């Protein structure tokens, strides 16, 4: 299976293309079948890739048979593969959910979904910084299109902001890439990492400006303060499956920050070593702060979840700022956890909103649920996970972050902030949960939508992952530890990816 590492990109790409062609383009039913098969195949191949990487180590795939640094190379390493698997898992679960007629609110849901997955997986796998830009654009344009799925004023409004801001971001990305290429003369990330170490004087100064711009770009994707504004409305207004899939979008920005500022501008970058750190610290902490305030202020479940996504982004940025293997390991664990949990919560919010009639997902008195036990149970799991309370995965991630932050001088800020953000989430969830589940008037209306089996399966699939992440926490943290060590090991993450170049 020498081509395995490109499967996560090609499967959704081909599925997406096929859906535009007869016979699949003719009926939604056929597209659904292809979607399920496609996402499942994606999941299987990602999992298999993960297994291969665990067994045999990093897999370098030189596209077009052009060896790095000249051609574009895909790098299936413990970090990227983990994220690809996560994205594929999310894609599969969310797709199951979407099948319950959520794909009917407009044309091309299925191909767009596939392309979105392709973009995400590509961004994770690529080892080339310009190719990263291209995949960013793939996932962005797909997300723009998916965002307006279902129509309606709020969606259009938030999409406009989202799109324009990201277009500004893309411009900045290209400025940054121009500077990077203009000073280093290469695009392969490993090659950049090797070359940046020898930059000196004015070239180094110029390269710094490029690195700074890239941080802004990734920060925008990751909803780093002051570029987080777009997120709450955008996520809250998106259709449920779209919002659920978007849960991983901020993580692409986070991932890029780790990839770029650990490997390229990391400890070995000479004059450019760790240049992001002084910016990341205050911005990350402020991101948590503002996310926390948002959590408290959230009037409804979707906004709450969106703000929690900001908090988790902030926490992950803190890990990036700490800049140690332990922190990276914490980030990887926390990232997987928070993605799954927020995704599940977005889906659940939709189920909740549908059953509560006019109240939707807002924390106000409403008619009772039709499936209170099941929904309540799922809600409790999501809430506990998001707050970071035992027995669900959130607490492990949070503890890992706290522990890794302890070695830094900034821990006096990190600890209280992260703990207070947990408390805020606790307050918000207990307020929202008690209101939604227990403050009722009228009777449940039997005409409204109950959660359908596929929806339940989808949410269940995501939710099952959370306790499993605790039960198998030892193995998973072992894995993230290895992945983090790999990322921080300059020989492994740079020189080994450049056949013909040795340290």
């Amino acid at each position, binding site marked *: 299976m020498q081509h395995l590492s490109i499967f996560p990109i090609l499967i959704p790409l081909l599925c997406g293309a096929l859906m535009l062609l007869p016979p699949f383009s003719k009926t939604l039913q056929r597209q659904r079948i292809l979607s399920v098969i496609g996402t499942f195949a994606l999941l299987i191949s990602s999992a298999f890739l993960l297994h291969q990487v665990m067994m045999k180590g990093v897999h370098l795939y030189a596209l077009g048979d052009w060896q790095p640094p000249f051609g574009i190379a895909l790098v299936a390493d413990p970090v990227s593969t983990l994220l690809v698997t996560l994205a594929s898992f999310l894609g599969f679960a969310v797709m199951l959910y979407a099948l319950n007629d959520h794909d009917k609110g407009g044309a091309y849901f299925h191909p767009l979904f596939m392309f979105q997955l392709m973009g995400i997986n590509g961004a994770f796998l690529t080892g080339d910084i*310009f190719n990263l830009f*291209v995949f960013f*654009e793939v996932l962005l*344009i797909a997300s*723009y*299109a998916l965002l*307006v799925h279902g*129509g*309606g*004023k709020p969606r*259009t*409004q938030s*999409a*406009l*902001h989202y*799109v*324009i801001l990201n*277009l*500004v971001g*893309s*411009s900045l990305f*290209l*400025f940054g*890439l*121009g*500077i990077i*290429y*203009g000073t280093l003369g290469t*695009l392969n990330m490993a090659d950049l990492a090797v070359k940046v170490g020898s930059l000196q004087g004015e070239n180094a100064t110029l390269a710094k400006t490029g690195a700074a711009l890239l941080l802004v770009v990734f920060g925008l994707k990751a909803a780093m303060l002051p570029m987080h504004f777009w997120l709450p409305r955008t996520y809250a207004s998106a259709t449920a499956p779209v919002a659920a899939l978007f849960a991983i979008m901020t993580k692409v920005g986070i991932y890029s920050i780790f990839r770029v500022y650990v490997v390229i501008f990391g400890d070995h970058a000479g004059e450019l070593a760790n240049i992001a750190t002084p910016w990341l610290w205050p911005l990350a902490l402020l991101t948590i702060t503002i996310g926390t305030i948002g959590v408290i202020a959230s009037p409804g479940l979707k906004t709450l979840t969106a703000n929690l996504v900001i908090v988790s982004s902030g926490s992950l940025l803190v890990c990036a700022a700490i800049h140690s293997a332990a922190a990276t390991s914490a980030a990887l664990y926390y990232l997987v956890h928070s993605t799954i949990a927020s995704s599940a919560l977005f889906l659940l919010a939709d189920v909740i909103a549908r059953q509560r009639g006019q109240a939707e997902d807002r924390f106000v008195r409403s008619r009772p649920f039709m499936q209170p036990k099941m929904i309540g149970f799922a809600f409790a799991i999501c809430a506990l996970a998001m707050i970071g309370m035992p027995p669900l995965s959130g607490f492990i991630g949070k503890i890992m972050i706290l522990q890794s932050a302890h070695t830094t001088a900034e821990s006096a800020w990190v600890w209280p902030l992260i703990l207070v953000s947990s408390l805020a989430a606790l307050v918000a969830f207990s307020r929202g949960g008690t209101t939604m589940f227990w403050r009722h008037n009228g009777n449940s209306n039997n005409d409204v939508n109950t959660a359908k089996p596929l929806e339940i399966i989808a949410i269940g699939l995501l939710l099952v992952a959370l306790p499993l992440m605790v039960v198998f926490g030892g193995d998973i943290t072992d894995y993230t530890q290895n992945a983090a060590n790999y990322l921080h090991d300059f020989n492994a993450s740079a020189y080994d990816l450049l056949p013909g170049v040795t340290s």
Partner: protein
Amino acid sequence: MEGIYAFSVGLLTACGVFLTLRGRSFSVVVGLTLLSYAVNLFLFASGRLKLNAAAVLGRSEQYSDPLPQALVLTAIVIGFAMTAFVVILAMRARADLGNDHVDGQVPKPKPPILQKGNTTHKAGGGQ
């Protein structure tokens, strides 16, 4: 030459940024387009400027750096796709929201501040 080029890129960027910060979707789109011109020129310049050196083998003694050109090409296409999308989205926003302000609602104009001693002000001519 490089100076002129850089100045032009800077000016285009400034123009693009200013328009991007306006409140109406059309201006913003025009601003983004200007910005993308600037970006493309900038990215192109990262391979340094060369005259009479098109990267077509056998056509000249030296070749300009083909890589940024390929990158700019990709960037142009992607930029086009994005511009197209945002243009239509702006139309859609106008259709859905009833106006073309990027925030979906026209901000209420602030009442003019009357200043003392401003004799030319219309409000002063009431007597």
